[in-house]
């Protein structure tokens, strides 16, 4: 092939070839939303509600986690709890949670106890990953792979199943607006040791958060 012309400019035919190659490459790359499963918002909310409303009883075996050094349970024996337990690093659905409890695993754990293989539950990003029907766990820092930061009016245009995300820290699932302007969110809360519905939350809680929308969300 011939190089640049004597005046340094790229020949037209070469420029066209490059443009055509680029166009083919772009066309062959599927858009990000095409690589994530479509999930109806109603389904997201149903899963979130199921996890927040799930009732279970802490058995003696669930107070223990032999694989965790200095394990400290948030519960006491025979305690009746509503909400899947908070388990740092976890992404257990209700069915998986119940199965692991029955198998004698520890009910939940905190981050300073490390990611464990003998405890069950979900952390904040694991909870959202479940609600968004993912087969793998995305963390708050990697949610951008499956969700897009919104530039809408967050005081009016968030939809059920959208999320408020603080990378490296926490993520919550938006539910609804209240008449007084506060919002309701589902979240796997370390402070409350379980999945909960937090009602009437003021915006000052979310100053460092960004609103994101799952790329496969279907209204």
């Amino acid at each position, binding site marked *: 092939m011939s190089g640049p012309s004597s005046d340094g400019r790229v020949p037209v035919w070469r420029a066209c070839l490059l443009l055509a190659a680029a166009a083919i490459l772009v066309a062959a790359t599927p858009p990000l939303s095409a690589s994530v499963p479509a999930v109806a918002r109603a389904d997201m909310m149903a899963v979130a509600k199921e996890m927040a409303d799930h009732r279970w009883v802490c058995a003696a075996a669930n107070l223990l986690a032999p694989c965790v050094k200095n394990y400290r349970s*948030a*519960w006491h024996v025979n*305690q*009746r*709890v*509503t909400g899947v337990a908070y388990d*740092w*690093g976890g992404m257990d659905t209700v069915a998986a949670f119940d199965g692991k409890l029955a198998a004698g695993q520890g009910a939940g754990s*905190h*981050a*300073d106890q490390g990611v464990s293989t003998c405890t069950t539950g979900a*952390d*904040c*990003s694991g909870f959202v990953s479940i609600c968004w029907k993912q087969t793998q766990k995305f*963390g*708050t*820092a990697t949610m951008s792979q499956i969700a897009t930061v919104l*530039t*809408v*009016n*967050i*005081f*009016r245009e968030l939809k059920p199943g959208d999320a408020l995300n*603080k990378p*490296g*820290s*926490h*993520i919550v699932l938006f539910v609804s607006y209240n*008449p*007084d*302007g*506060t919002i309701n969110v589902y979240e796997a809360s*370390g*402070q*409350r*040791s*379980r999945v909960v519905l937090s009602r*009437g939350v*003021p*915006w*000052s*809680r*979310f*100053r460092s*958060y960004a609103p994101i929308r799952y790329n496969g969300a279907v209204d």
Partner: protein
Amino acid sequence: MRAYGAALCVIAAAVAGCSREAPRSSSVTASGTTTTSAPQPPGRSPSPGSTPQAGVRVIDAMTASVKIPVVRIDTDPQTRGDALGPLTIRIERQDREPEGPQSFDVLPDGRFVIADPLRDRLVVYEPGGKAQREIPIGGAARVVAAVGSEAVRIVSAVDGTAHTFDFKGREQPATRGAESQTPRAAVKLDDDRSGSVQWTSTRSDGRRPADLRVLIDEAKNRLASLQIIAVDEEQRPYIAVEAADRSGRSLESLSKTVRRYSPGGALEAEVRKIPIDYYIVPVTEFRVVGGVLYQLMPRQDAVFINVWTIK
């Protein structure tokens, strides 16, 4: 060139002035807590373009900020369970928000009671911040409210149940009078600039204030939320007002003020420059006792009780 250089000097001086923190006067108690007078911790500036209404008292500066030390539960295991005074926090890590004190109340004599959920206890502090005693409650409290001067009512963080304890940590039967004296109300935003509060119940004495209309006058802002903090003994409502940039696309401009209204519904006072850069977000952010506004501000280096005297 001289004019250009002079302009740069003026700009640099202005920037230097804005970044300089106000001087504090402080005294350190024997327990290591520090009470500071009239400081101004970093916080948001008042909304631009806002003009105080005639007859409305505008309060920009805190009366005091009581500082209570903290210890990190996950990096100071040797100190866990030792010292009375310091409150306990768990720092933020990957996919885990920070944890620690989220609720407090002010006793009739001015003492504070603060929940220390990571140590399953409450701690009572003197008004100056010196730890007085701890109340072991056997679990993590998400909300704490004083019942008189020698009992507290808590809501469990892990199961949402309510319990009443005396100051020795003995559980008490639930008593009448422990319920909030704040009447219920329908609070709503009517549009981007206004909202309303319509009382739907009365206090136990049968009284309630007049319904309210809340307006923000800053052209660049929108009303984000309204929340009732308290109704005091004189029937004066205290309302937390959040406002943000009019576009609604960012929370970076969010600001929070507290307004006090007369029993008849007239705006009496507004507390501005309320800091909202919490490290741990409080569940019970504000209390009002005797015309004094208190705010719980958990930061990574200490927990502050910020105080504004409105009276």
